[in-house]
């Protein structure tokens, strides 16, 4: 009997070891659940986090360093003053439902996205397309109305994913794509499961056999879920104050990186008192970035002085453009006719970084004589009251799209309420300029212009704070786009 139980124990141990060594599944935690699974129907970042790159593919993709990389298009050429793009597609690309991908499929997808009745969240990216030609099954020629240095980045977005015409309408609940993973299951409110595609053109690409994305909305619940081993990876953990605990636990690795999310204290340039540049500069002289970053991001955010990500080589440090100087701020306010201070509203949306930084910044502004009324709003309210009706003085929100400096040319219809002819001219040049050195110079001038005009009071770059199982490799440190590159992930012993 003893022999039996010993051998049984050994057998069990061996099975357990084998199972452990062969780990090829992963459970990834995320805060928000996608409402639908189709990025051409809904702008929710959670859709891209799960499906872009993994299931759906676009012509191009954005790499970890933020540059444009080939995806469905293996190569491309740009001709005729940057107005004609010729993309080459690989042979033998099939969708999960067995349909073949050809140049016609690409044309169909883009025609659909730019159609007059299209409800694609990135519809504006397709307005610049004049014509699409498909000389053969592996070539797509796109003619633009005007040259655009951002066109290749736009083509990388989830909204520009290539769909199969037969399954496109059902992608909201049963995604069909060409990527290295295919959709398996969606248990609403709980999880989405993907598994390795058997029909992908490069079968060696993915190592993880099955990936489960589990939704844990509550920041306080994310920590025990990791500690209990229910979740292997949480790329954007909500409670940053708990990271020290994971750092000292050998079962985990903590990866801190940057995102494309600039977080300014946004000022309404088209409404009193911030229609006056002196008042905006006064705010800039008051804010103390260090204490905001410590309080709102547990010290992990990087300070910024303009609208540009600090991890990018073209970044210029403008954080000392307005040194902290309360007396100077009061003087500016007096000049602007607000010697007795000003009553201002601050409407932060329900994100931890926004609510926390709003409270700290409000306390700082009071020192200079601003009477700040914090009115927390939920996201739907923010979109309606702040974004659409522009009924606000100050707000805080991260701007997560890459190359979104063109927001400063969107005029008085946009919620910034900022309009400036010099800025419009700079941006126009930057968009059509194909020479990289000249573009760098133009983006430098744009950064300075935004800071000089004190459009907003820039605070910090949103950090990416991830907790992962110690044996996981292939993790993206920075996240220039909201995707999870499953094909790059692997387990080590």
């Amino acid at each position, binding site marked *: 009997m003893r022999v039996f139980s010993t051998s049984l124990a050994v057998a069990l141990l061996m099975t357990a070891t084998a199972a452990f060594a062969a780990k090829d599944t992963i459970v990834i935690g995320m805060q928000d*659940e996608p*409402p*639908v699974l189709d990025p051409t*129907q*809904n*702008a*929710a970042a959670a859709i891209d986090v799960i499906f872009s790159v993994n299931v759906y593919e676009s012509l191009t993709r954005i790499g970890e360093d933020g540059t444009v990389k080939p995806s469905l298009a293996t190569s491309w050429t740009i001709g005729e003053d940057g107005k004609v793009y010729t993309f080459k597609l690989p042979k033998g690309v099939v969708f999960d439902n067995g349909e073949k991908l050809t140049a016609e499929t690409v044309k169909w997808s883009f025609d659909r996205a730019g159609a*007059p*009745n*299209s*409800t*694609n*969240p*990135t*519809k*504006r990216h397709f*307005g610049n397309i004049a014509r699409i030609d498909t000389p053969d099954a592996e070539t797509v020629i796109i003619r633009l109305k005007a040259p655009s240095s951002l066109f290749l980045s736009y083509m990388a977005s989830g909204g520009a994913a290539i769909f199969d015409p037969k399954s496109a309408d059902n992608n*909201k*609940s049963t995604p069909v794509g060409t990527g290295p993973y295919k959709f398996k299951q969606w*248990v*609403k*409110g*709980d*999880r989405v499961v993907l598994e390795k595609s058997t029909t992908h053109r490069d079968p060696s690409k993915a190592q993880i056999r099955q990936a489960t994305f*589990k*939704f*844990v*909305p*509550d920041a*306080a*619940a994310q920590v*025990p*879920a990791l*500690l*209990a*081993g*229910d979740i292997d990876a949480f790329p954007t953990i909500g409670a940053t104050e708990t990271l020290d605990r994971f750092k000292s636990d050998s079962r985990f690795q903590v990866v801190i990186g940057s995102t494309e999310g600039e977080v300014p204290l946004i000022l309404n340039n088209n409404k009193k008192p911030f229609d006056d540049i002196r008042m905006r500069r006064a705010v800039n002289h008051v804010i103390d970035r260090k204490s905001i970053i410590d309080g709102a991001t547990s010290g992990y955010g990087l300070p910024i002085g303009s609208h540009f990500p600090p991890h990018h080589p073209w970044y210029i440090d403008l954080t000392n453009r307005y040194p902290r100087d309360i007396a100077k701020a009061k003087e500016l306010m007096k000049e602007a006719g607000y010697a007795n201070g000003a009553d201002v509203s601050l409407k932060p949306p329900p994100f931890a970084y926004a609510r926390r930084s709003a409270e700290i910044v409000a306390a700082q502004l009071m020192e200079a004589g601003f009477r700040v009324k914090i009115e927390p709003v*939920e*996201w*739907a*309210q923010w*979109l*309606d*009251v702040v*974004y*659409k009706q522009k009924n606000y003085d100050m707000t805080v929100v991260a701007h997560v*799209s890459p190359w979104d400096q063109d927001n400063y040319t969107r005029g008085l219809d946009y919620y910034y309420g900022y309009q400036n002819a010099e800025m419009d001219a700079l941006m126009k040049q930057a968009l059509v300029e194909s020479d990289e050195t000249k573009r760098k110079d133009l983006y430098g001038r744009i950064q300075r212009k935004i800071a000089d005009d004190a459009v907003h009071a820039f605070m910090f770059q949103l950090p990416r704070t991830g907790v992962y199982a110690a044996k996981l490799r292939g993790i993206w440190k920075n996240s220039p786009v909201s995707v999870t590159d499953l094909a790059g992930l692997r387990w080590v012993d």
Partner: protein
Amino acid sequence: MSPSPASWRGREYERPLPRAQPIRYNGAVLMTSFALRRLATFIATLIATSLVVFLVLEVLPGDPALLMLGIDAQPDAVAALRAKLGLDKPAVERYLVWMAGMVRGDLGISHTYGTSVAELIGERLVVTLPLALIAMTLTTIIALTLGVFAASKHNTIGDYGVMTATQLGIAIPNFWFAILLVLLFAVALGWLPAGGFPGWDQGPIALKSLVLPAFALALVQAAILARVTRSAVLEVLREDFVRTARAKGLTRTQTLWRHVLRNSLIPVVTIMGLQFSNLLAGTIIIENVFYLPGLGRLIFQSINQRDLIVVKDVVVLLAAKVVVINFIVDLLYAVIDPRLRTQR
């Protein structure tokens, strides 16, 4: 409430207490009028609720189409989506279309998920309903045991212990208690999952995911109900028939469970009815802490995403649920106290 002369008759004690029986009203007329009255209340409640929830959601800021397409969306894409969702129609028309659908049993299509609302609610009910039933069962068992125990040990250590414990139970917020439970049973001991729900297709193992949430929900309710039970039992213990029961030779325990408990149940059942109706407010929080895909989560998500049709449908459904629970409580009164059957 003094006991009726009937309970003084000596023989009454030798027979077992009457068992629950179907309600006998004084004739069919009374029964029909009662049922009709109930039905009228039911319909009126639903219409009033539907109007209130519709008006509240009308004035609530937030555009579902803008929420779905995000801040980079082109205005004409948002307008096209509004038209597709039927949000550009006048309010009266939208209300009537919604009501007409309800009458036909068609709850409509969710804006955000794009699937039938009935299906969405169905998927969530299979989590929330078992959770609520387990929580309510736990509440009842814990509360009745503690309440009767405390009353029987009135003014002793046992009584004080229960009173202190229940006071604590009322004071502790359930979401905080939930996190403590997770830290102990999921993180430290590893007996139960920290959250999530694998689905019933995984078999009875799915029940494990409901244990901690059910306890978290039951704690506060059980604390309140135990105190109510204790007071009710103490009240009845002072009645003369209890002394009679003891005098004819029943032990303390026999008296307590056979005569006293049943006579104290009216206030207990009233509170239980209220608690069962309120349980959903609790699940909104608890389902978020344990990330369970239940009805509470659905409401929370739908309000945030301005999935107005889902919010409206679920609110009306909940109103219907409260009316039905009140009706069941009324029926239970008659089962518990046969005298109430003829007092209509």
